[in-house]
């Protein structure tokens, strides 16, 4: 009777995947994560999840209130705007837009920031000085005015808004990355790699970048909220997303005039912004505690 002991030996060498996962997710803020998940589902599966086409006007339902109010119907759970478009549908598609803008803008800002930050930190010298002065210059300019200026120059298409967000944000990533690079640069394994003859870019890619990623991820997550609010502010000032795009900021700007008569037009997208940013921030804080406790507010 040969009892296999293989499984038992494995168990003592490494904790099973489930246990590691549990450890990694310790302290995960459940409510926040749940909401972020909701946001992601809405954003990614918008066309299937949304009850209506967000641009579908129905003048008979114009300014219908949410279903729990008098005159509200179950056909439009969260009510309609002045053109009779379903608010819930627009919130769902707005999530999609917020996600799109955030991901691409932060991705772009991060990419530019990483490249310039590594160049500055690793190469040093005059290049470092010049890049950092450029970073300082961008950080000195009030970001909303820059965003306004760029949008006025380039136009209000989705691509342009993404580019504008990236332009106003890259500097913080560059500064962060450079700081990290300077720390990592000193370490032994980098020196060893140099001695071994590895080219600089290879060292940057293989050794420096992975160490930097944690900070970038944390900063990026915390930035999602910032970008969402910035987009809403741009719409408020009249230079944000335009139809047929649906954004929460745009809904706020449109509905503002109806604040006293049709409160759901502003309160609901306002809540959407608030809850999303809140949840993402809480999640980002947790991430920071887990991945990069050293990082303070920038």
């Amino acid at each position, binding site marked *: 009777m040969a009892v296999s002991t293989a499984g038992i030996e494995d168990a003592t060498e490494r904790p099973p995947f489930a246990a590691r996962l549990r450890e990694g997710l310790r302290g995960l803020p459940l409510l926040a994560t749940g909401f972020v998940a909701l946001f992601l589902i809405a954003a990614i599966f918008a066309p299937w999840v949304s009850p209506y086409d967000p641009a579908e006007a129905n003048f008979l339902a114009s300014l219908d209130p949410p279903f729990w109010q008098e005159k509200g119907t179950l056909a439009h759970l969260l009510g309609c705007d002045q053109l009779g478009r379903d608010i819930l549908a627009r919130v769902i598609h707005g999530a999609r837009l917020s996600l799109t803008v955030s991901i691409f803008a932060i991705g772009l800002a991060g990419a530019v920031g990483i490249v310039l930050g590594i160049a500055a930190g690793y190469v040093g010298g005059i290049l470092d000085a010049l890049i950092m002065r450029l970073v300082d210059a961008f950080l000195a300019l009030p970001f909303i005015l820059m965003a306004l200026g760029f949008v006025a120059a380039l136009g209000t298409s989705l691509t342009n808004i993404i580019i504008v967000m990236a332009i106003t944000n890259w500097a913080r990533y560059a500064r962060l990355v450079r700081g990290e690079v300077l720390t990592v640069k000193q370490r032994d394994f980098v020196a060893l790699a140099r001695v071994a003859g590895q080219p600089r870019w290879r060292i940057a890619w293989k050794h420096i970048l992975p160490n930097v990623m944690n900070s970038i991820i944390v900063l990026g997550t915390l930035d999602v909220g910032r970008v969402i609010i910035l987009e809403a502010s741009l719409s408020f000032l009249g230079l944000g997303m335009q139809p047929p795009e649906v954004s929460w900021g745009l809904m706020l700007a*449109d509905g503002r005039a109806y604040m006293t*008569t049709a409160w759901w037009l502003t309160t609901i997208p306002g809540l959407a912004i608030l809850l999303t940013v809140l949840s993402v921030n809480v999640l980002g804080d947790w991430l920071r505690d887990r991945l990069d406790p050293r990082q303070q507010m920038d």
Partner: protein
Amino acid sequence: MSLWSGTASVFAAGMVMAVWSGAALAQGKTATVAVGADISTTDPHKISGGNEYIFFTQVFEGLYGHDLKGQLEPHLATGYTVSSDGLTYTFKLRSNVKWHNGDPFVAEDVVYSWKRATDPEIKNPRLAILAGNIKEAKAIDSSTVELVLKKPDASMLENMGEYWYIVPSHAAKVGHEEFAKNPVGSGPYRFVERKVKDSFTLDAFKDHWGRKPGVDRLLVRIINDAQTRVAMLKTGEADLVVDVPLQSAKEVEKDPNVKLHVVPSLQNIFLTISNRKSDGTWKDVRVRQAVAHAIDRKTIIDKVMLGYAKQTTANCQVGVLGCDTGKPGYAYDPNKAKALLKEAGWDPSKTIKLVGIAPGRTPQSKEVAEAIAFFLNQVGMKTQVEIMEYGAWLRFAYAREADKADLIFFTWTDYNNDPMGRLPRSMRTDGALSWNSHPELDALIDAANGFTDPQARLAHLRKTWTWINDNVPQVGLWTVDMLYGTRKNVEWTPAPGVSWPVLWKLAKK
């Protein structure tokens, strides 16, 4: 009593009197008016847009102007005669007119006003409309002036109230810049001070020849944000608010402390069609008529404009000369639209582009564009909307690149009832903002100013509007109403047919 104490008591008494009278002056009634946009100049010969007039209407006057009903009335002149060829006008000037600095008004002032308005240094943006057409101005005597025109201009009298303000000849002594900084006019209010982008202050001119100002001081504050203006009306920080947003109209009506005034305006909303598009999309009149039939103006006015608009027919509103053509206009008939499109062979896979204006410039511009696209889609015209910020839209509209758009949402404020202020620029083939190319229409427009007999001219204008109605070079939509809000204790009514607030009668209880 020593010399010192005597002097001291006289001094003290003088101080008390000065403070007292100062206090008495300051005690006069001040009315605060909140408007959405600042004026860009205080120089009466540098006016370039409609929103400047909230200042100039109270401070300056022309030889002729408009009364509170929008009708022509003599201001600085009392009467005129015109030669048979329509080129020489002789004006009798009003005798008891004083300038704000106390000087009497004389014929020399009119002559100087012509010189100043046509001075190349001033770069008068409105030169072409009136002053540039005056070949010569002569003072016959101190109360008679003669104007010789280059070409006959039947609209001249109507335009005098807005396009050619009379200024005192002493302005020559201080120079153009200084005069603009401290403008002296003849209107019921005089200029006190201006804080750019913030406010301007006008004091009552008690020596005005005919109109008695309603309050002692007008403080006009620039408040860009519409909701903030409404809030100020409700809290009492503003006595009169210009441009109450439609959505707040109901709550203003309900509030017992404030009153809502709704008056039809001369601001026209229409769709310009890109008639010169090279692929001939819009060449067929049936296609254009289909668009006119496809749009449910009534629903848009009710639901989007909340009722605060008046439908137009041939792109002109009631009161405009020649608009009474008797034609019914285009009723909402999607089936007819579909039939017309089918007849014309419209390709249902084609997508057309509608360019609209971002919010802020004219109420609900964005929502209207979206609503129009909705209705066009319903009849099978696939429409894609592009909303541009106003500056970008203006640039686009001027560029008139026919292939870059199909339909363009337009707003146009007429200054008076004479359509010749709009037709040449908006509908004639090479007009500055015209996307048209219709030789017949051009001929009609060109002929319009040749008539000296008002009745004959009216008949011709009717003919012109009839053509416009039948051939739809532009799709007329509606005119927006102007909404004003006043506190209950303010006595004021807006002047109909005038596109800006006339304030001289405003009074506070």
